[in-house]
């Protein structure tokens, strides 16, 4: 059991490190080009680097969560979380010419969670889906959304590109089921962000699941509304 946990941790670390190769490669090449080119490259360099740093920060957050610390849960405004994630993702989405849509389906009571962790988890899912669609021939886009189901609140990110994200979701499901899979095979699919997101979700006593809605596929967590704040819907 201890060995299994160590192996899973090592695999996650390896996956994160592998995923960092790509943004660092982009940074290095854009920096090299920058001496002869446009200011847009400077902006892109900064945005790519910052998102890679966010991946590192989120990984560190997921590690903190796995040390069985008692987390401070608080009522968290659903709209605020999603708006914050959208703001985090906007720069990297621009780099990849990926559209972000923010969609709140109704009004929501605050949910009992941890703002920083939930925001990081949603951001990481969004980042993974943006990167996954980066080479799509169609208009890449993600939808950051919340909706109600069976008196619970679902928060998640949907992808407009079903073809690309099908592989991502299959890998995600395999990781969740802990099936043996060669990490190099997934290292250039941005699964590390999803794994980090799910690890963070675990520390919040929830998990990301593959969901379908309005003919789109996405990943979402289920959270319970705060019983004290239930009367307040925003």
């Amino acid at each position, binding site marked *: 059991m201890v060995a299994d946990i160590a192996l899973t941790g090592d695999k996650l670390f390896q996956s994160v490190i592998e995923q960092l190769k790509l943004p660092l*490669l982009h940074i290095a090449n*854009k920096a*090299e*080009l920058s001496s002869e080119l446009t200011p847009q490259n400077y902006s892109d360099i900064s945005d790519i680097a910052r998102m890679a740093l966010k991946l590192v920060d989120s990984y560190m957050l997921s590690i903190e969560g796995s040390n069985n610390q008692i987390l401070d849960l608080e009522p968290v405004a659903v709209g605020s979380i999603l708006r914050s994630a959208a703001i985090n993702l906007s720069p990297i989405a621009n780099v990849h010419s990926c559209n972000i849509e923010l969609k709140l389906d109704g009004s929501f009571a605050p949910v009992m969670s941890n703002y920083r962790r939930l925001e990081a988890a949603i951001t990481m899912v969004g980042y993974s889906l943006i990167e996954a669609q*980066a080479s799509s021939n169609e208009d890449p886009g993600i939808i950051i959304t919340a909706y109600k189901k069976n008196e619970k609140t679902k928060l998640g990110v949907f992808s407009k590109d079903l073809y690309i994200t099908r592989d991502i979701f299959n890998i995600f499901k395999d990781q969740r089921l802990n099936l043996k899979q060669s990490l190099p095979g997934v290292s*250039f699919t941005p699964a590390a962000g999803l794994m980090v997101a799910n690890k963070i979700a675990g520390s919040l006593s929830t998990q990301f699941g593959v969901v379908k809605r309005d003919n789109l596929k996405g990943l979402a967590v289920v959270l319970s509304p705060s019983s004290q704040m239930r009367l307040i819907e925003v």
Partner: protein
Amino acid sequence: MRTLIIDSDKILSSVYKTYLEYFGHVVDLADDGQVAIDLIDKAKPDIILLEIQLKKHSGFEFLYELRSYPEWNEIPVILCTLLNKSELSLSLVHLEHFGVVDILYKPTLRLNELAYVLENKLSVA
């Protein structure tokens, strides 16, 4: 010199294209094998820069298809990949009969080296 870059990474392809065009190359971009075949049919490149890990299909599949066209057999191909040699599990010797003339490792490849290799390999080929 006309170069075809086949890579699903649009950021990197764009950087390579911009750099090479600055030094007078004509550069076409394709993000998968089928788009590449269509482009080659319209304008035959002098050399191809190919990433093995394409999003939809493997670069090797493209290589097999390219070499099925006799009129394109002489186009040299340079593999330019994020995979290191141990991950690639192939050596240049095995790839030579597919017309692969070099393997470049992206993390250590500088842009000026890319331009030099393209021109050098083309003159040798």
